[in-house]
């Protein structure tokens, strides 16, 4: 199986789906001539031309809304946000229009559209460019929300998202684009709404999604050396959540730590922690712990910004807490 980067996996997904369906097009800032701010769309403009790989002015609300209107009328746009920080400019379009149109119209419209780009902190980018915004979208009925952490999941989920008849918000990460993983040459899809056990274990369940999955895996490896067997459950989809997989894993381990790089108040992580507390009350041997970003805007200074984010060390500490090993 070839090993490719997360960036290449996304590129393949868009390329394959554009080749498969001529209603699919890519629109966003710098996606065409510049080949994408993070080079996800490299080569697509040369291959498909300006009709299907469309550079826009810097106007997130405008081009996001244009994508939604085009989807209502029967096209299948992939809207690239250079980062999710700028998606806040387009939040009205996504929440008031994309998510609500089918419902308000009594089921008359389909909205086959994907909004994608990097979400969450990278490095040295300060408060406006380092935000984990999953909760904004996961909160909203009418959207599907996915957050793949590996090249395999990125390709399979993006292909499913493009084929889905509903608005899908897909969160990537700057620091994931260069990560590598095995991706089959043959076509495959990863279904939206299914979590995945990335590492099997028996003593504690680590539930997470997106970039910080890799911290959870690393923490699990450290814990293994100390004789603790941690299961890592990758949510992959935040809306809908795979509640069955969550409950099944916690039923096996009896303990749970949730890891989400977002700020902790009213986040996906805090919701999942509540869900586990509620659904698994009789199974749990300890309180559910949440390892989240600290409740502050992101500072520029590197020492400070690292302190704000989850780390393998913080996860290990939380696991020891639910194992009463402190």
């Amino acid at each position, binding site marked *: 199986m070839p090993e490719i980067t997360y960036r290449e996996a996304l590129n393949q997904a868009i390329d394959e789906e554009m080749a498969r369906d001529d209603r699919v*097009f890519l629109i966003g800032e710098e996606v065409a001539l510049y080949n994408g701010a993070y080079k996800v769309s490299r080569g697509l403009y040369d291959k498909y031309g300006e*009709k299907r790989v469309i550079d*826009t*002015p810097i*106007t997130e*609300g*405008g*081009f*996001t*809304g*244009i*994508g*939604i*209107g*085009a*989807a*209502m*009328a*029967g*096209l299948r746009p992939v809207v690239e946000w250079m980062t999710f920080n700028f998606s806040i400019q387009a939040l*009205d*379009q996504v929440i*008031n*229009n994309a998510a609500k*149109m*089918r*419902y*308000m*119209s*009594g*089921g*008359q*419209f*389909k*909205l086959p559209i994907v909004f994608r780009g990097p979400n969450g902190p990278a490095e040295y980018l300060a408060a406006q460019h380092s935000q984990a915004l999953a909760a904004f979208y996961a909160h909203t*009925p*009418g959207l*599907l929300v996915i957050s793949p952490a590996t090249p395999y999941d990125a390709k399979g989920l993006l292909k499913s998202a493009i*084929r*889905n*008849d*509903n608005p899908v918000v897909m969160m990537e990460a700057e620091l994931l684009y260069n990560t590598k993983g095995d991706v089959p040459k043959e076509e495959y899809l990863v279904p939206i709404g299914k979590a995945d056990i990335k590492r099997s274990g028996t003593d504690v369940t680590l539930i997470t999604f997106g970039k910080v999955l890799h911290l959870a895996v690393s923490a699990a490896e450290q814990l293994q050396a100390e004789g603790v067997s941690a299961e890592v459950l990758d949510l992959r989809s935040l809306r809908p959540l795979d509640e069955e997989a969550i409950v099944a894993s916690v039923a096996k381990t009896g303990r749970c730590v949730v890891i989400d790089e977002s700020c902790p108040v009213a986040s996906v992580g805090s919701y999942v922690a509540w869900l586990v507390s509620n659904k698994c009350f009789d199974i749990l041997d300890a309180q559910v712990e949440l390892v989240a970003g600290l409740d502050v805007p992101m500072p520029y200074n590197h020492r400070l910004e690292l302190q704000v984010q989850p780390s393998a060390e913080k996860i290990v500490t939380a696991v020891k807490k639910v194992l009463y090993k402190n």
Partner: protein
Amino acid sequence: MNSPDITKYDKSFLSSLLQQMLLIRRFEEKAAQMYGLRKIGGFCHIYIGQEAVCTGAIATVDLAKDYIITAYRDHGHALTVGMDPKVVMAELFGKITGCCRGKGGSMHLFDEQKHFYGGHGIVGSHIPLATGMAVKIKYKNEDGVVLCFFGDGAIHQGSFHEALNMAGLWKLPIVYICENNQYGMGTDFRRASAVNELSKLAASYNMPGSRVDGMDVLAVYQSVTDAVKLARERSKPSLLEIRTYRYLGHSMSDPATYRTKKEVAKYKSQDPIVILRDRMTAAGMFTEDEYVVMDKDCKSIVTEAIDFAEQSKNPEIETLYEDILAETQE
């Protein structure tokens, strides 16, 4: 712009415009009354006074290939695209037989089959959607155009400027129709806009802009015909400021005390229905008797719509979870 010569048009066409405006008028009078009786709730924005705008504009297009989208003062547009007054009234009543199964209400009327794309409640937010619909037409090399209606309040939203820039840049087949009823809620548009001639904003986006008398349905028809031709034949967008006036408040809860009685009376004396009727009569194309029959017909259509809405059922609680997501076909 001077009003077009009425004798250029045949009687059946003029009668259809008159009938359409009269139907909207009678529908809206009853809707307001039903609101007072609490049969209709929430925000309800009445179109009385503005009938010539949607009537004259929508008469220029072919809804097999063209598209209509508007804001929340949408009852008139819904009726003019040919939606059944029964399902429109039932939607205002929140009934399951309404066009949106009681989920949209007054502000969110839709008819996908008739290419009526809503019915939108966030000021200016639908202008990019309209522009995306025009992108689809161009992408598929179709022959259609989009008519995008919005109010004078929407013209200062970023979404208006962002969308018009891309429409000008990409030469999209769309007509932006600002229905300037002169008040964004309670604020005179002159108190909200750096320019009083709103059509001047078109120049920033490399498209033609002009002001139209919105109390004269033929002036509206002629101007929109020209703009549609430009969009259809040369794929060029334009902006029309159609100057009109709403007789009632912004919504049913607004007594509109910010306007003088004199001002309201002045516009009522230019009533679009009266103007067209009188001009047709003066040209010997229409009689008082014909008007009486037409009015009676409109009133009976509205009465039937009310009866239908009254007799229809409320949605079942189970429908709450329907229509959120589509079943993906493949």
